[in-house]
């Protein structure tokens, strides 16, 4: 193939300063970004908007922690506080945690990792970003006009008949954003099924792909349910239809069933992609195949399936029948097993590995620790007798932050640090990035561990003021939050800095294997100069290959 020869000839060494054609310099101008169909550029668009929402959600978190410094409600009015924690929840859950890894890292890497030129439906992919933005605008509009105070859970009948805030705009925003998630998931499933490179069999797929496949299935099966449920809430407010209205004999608990049918699996939408990232990181920085590859792959699918059968464990004290609660509790115990197996397998991967503690690996190891605690406390609250006491207390708040922040955000930041050289062709400062990983880990534990104790003591969540005896732990938590904040701001600064001033990374700064490391950094628009032919599974390391692969050892991070 003649074009292939041309491609070889234009591979220039980074030292010459000559930039090879890649997806970043293929076209210039805002228009070329806003109308792009390149999955890599769309990933960058998502990176920017997701980061903006993360910053906004973080700002609300800071306001919450400031208010809770003292037992009295002194910083803001209770109505304001209710809006603040609602906006924090809505923005973090629907506009950051759910899209973060799939829409940014997944979008960038899924086609490259399976050896495809693009996702199956590039226009749908772009549309998904616009839909996400549109949904975001609805929520921002609601926020600017006074916000919404129902909590991110939108429980009826408060949300349908009692709240005087912008429930409809927010619900519609979440409804719309749901479609962007659906389009991303749909794209992934079809791409993984139909667009794999020659030789890329299912068991040669990286675990990142397996976890994104499992995530996409959850997205497809779960998201429509919350979409219609929120639509019903909006219809109940606007059109006075009464599906959940207790005054008409409707049952508000039905709303909770439908809500959690999506929103519990949504937790796995957040954590599964992160688990995929961790598998990649642990393998790359141990230079070893992930221990029990097939077990980890099937564990992702098992989590996706079982995750749909446990939603009722959010409703143990809502008047659900005891029998139903028992069924949901026992299945919740089962879903803990594949998660535990993953943790054991990652730990075992380190055994006899060649472990290098570069920044992404620090995040990965932090993830394993935090997720272990998050998961174990999850099984605690899935135990019926304990949940009665802990339900709706700060124990729950701490638990899900361990899973979502300790899990999803650690995975997201770890993945971003790992693939940043792939996305931009640049390196970031090694010391600062390690410092930020440390700050995030320490700050996180300081913020959320005291909340376990608060919850066990009985402090209910969503309280704007609280009895005095809870103050010490709240102060600790607020102090930790400020450390955590610094830990999050640092990467923002050095990532932006590195785009212009960072050292050039070369194609493969980590000496990692995987199709994404076989193509230049940043990759060309079509991802590969020649279509890769896959002959072996992922994570096959041997000395010669690593030596040949590793780009510019002198420029290596750390």
């Amino acid at each position, binding site marked *: 193939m003649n074009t292939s020869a041309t491609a070889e000839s234009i591979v220039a060494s980074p030292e010459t300063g000559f930039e090879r054609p890649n997806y970043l310099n293929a076209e210039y101008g805002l228009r070329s970004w806003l109308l792009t169909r390149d999955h890599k550029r769309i990933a960058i668009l998502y990176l920017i908007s997701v980061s903006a929402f993360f910053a906004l959600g973080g700002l609300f978190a800071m306001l919450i922690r400031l208010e809770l410094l003292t037992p009295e409600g002194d910083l803001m009015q209770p109505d304001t506080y209710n809006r603040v924690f609602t906006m924090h929840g809505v923005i973090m859950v629907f506009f950051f945690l759910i899209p973060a890894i799939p829409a940014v890292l997944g979008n960038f890497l899924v086609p490259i990792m399976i050896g495809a030129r693009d996702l199956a439906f590039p226009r749908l992919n772009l549309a998904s970003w616009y839909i996400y933005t549109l949904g975001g605008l609805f929520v921002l509009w609601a926020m600017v006009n006074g916000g919404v105070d129902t909590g991110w859970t939108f429980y009826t009948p408060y949300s349908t008949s009692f709240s005087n805030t912008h429930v409809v705009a927010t619900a519609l925003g979440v409804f719309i954003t749901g479609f962007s998630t659906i389009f991303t998931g749909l794209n992934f499933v079809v791409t993984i*099924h139909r667009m794999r490179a020659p030789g890329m069999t299912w068991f040669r797929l990286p675990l990142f792909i397996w976890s994104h496949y499992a995530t996409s299935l959850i997205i497809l*099966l779960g998201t429509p*349910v919350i979409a219609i449920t929120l639509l019903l809430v909006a219809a109940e407010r606007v059109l006075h239809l009464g599906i959940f209205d207790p005054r008409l004999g409707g049952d508000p*608990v*039905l709303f909770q*069933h*439908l809500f959690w*049918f999506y929103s519990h699996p949504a937790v796995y939408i957040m954590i599964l992609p992160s688990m995929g990232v961790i598998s990649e990181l642990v393998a790359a920085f141990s230079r070893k195949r992930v221990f029990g590859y097939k077990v980890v792959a099937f564990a992702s699918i098992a989590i996706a399936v079982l995750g*749909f*059968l446990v*939603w*009722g464990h959010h409703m143990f004290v809502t008047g*659900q*029948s*005891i*029998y*139903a609660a028992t*069924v*949901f509790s026992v299945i919740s115990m089962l879903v803990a097993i594949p998660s535990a197996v993953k943790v054991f397998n990652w730990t075992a991967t380190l055994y006899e590995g060649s472990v290098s503690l570069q920044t992404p690996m620090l995040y990965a190891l932090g993830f394993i620790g935090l997720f272990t605690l998050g998961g174990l406390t999850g099984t605690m609250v899935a135990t019926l007798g304990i949940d009665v006491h802990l339900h709706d207390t700060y124990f729950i708040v701490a638990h899900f932050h361990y899973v979502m922040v300790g899990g999803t955000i650690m995975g997201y930041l770890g993945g971003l640090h790992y693939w940043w050289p792939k996305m931009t062709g640049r390196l970031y400062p090694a010391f600062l990035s390690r410092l930020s990983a440390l700050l995030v880990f320490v700050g996180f534990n300081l913020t959320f561990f005291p909340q376990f104790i608060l919850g066990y003591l009985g402090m209910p969540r969503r309280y704007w003021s609280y009895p005095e005896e809870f103050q010490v732990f709240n102060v600790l938590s607020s102090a930790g939050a400020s450390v955590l904040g610094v830990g999050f701001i640092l990467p923002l600064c050095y990532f932006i800095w590195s785009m212009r001033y960072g050292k050039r990374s070369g194609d493969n700064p980590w000496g990692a294997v995987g199709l994404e490391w076989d193509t230049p950094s940043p990759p060309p628009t079509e991802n590969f100069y020649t279509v890769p032919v896959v002959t072996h599974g992922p994570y096959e390391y041997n000395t010669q290959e690593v030596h040949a692969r590793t780009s510019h050892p002198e420029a290596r991070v750390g």
Partner: protein
Amino acid sequence: MSHNPESTLKWYIAVFLFLMVMTGLTVAVAKMDLGAMNDVVMLVIAVAKALAVILIFMHVKDSTRVTALTVVGGFVWLGILIFFTLNDYLSRGDLLLNVPGK
């Protein structure tokens, strides 16, 4: 899918007639009082109609296994939603609660 246009035409017409007859049948049966069987017959007919549409009009009969699995998966998941929700409501009498404990 079947690439013989003659046979597809026959199938399409057959399915169309089947659907029409079944619609008539379901209305006729609904006007008889069969007690709880009314619901059962109604649903059996609806499922039969839906199956005919899925298999023939939507070409699942001649499609890949992945497609067939997708369809089955969709309905199984709907089953999960309905089953586990109903599971709560049908055991709501809180029978257990009304039996005094020790």
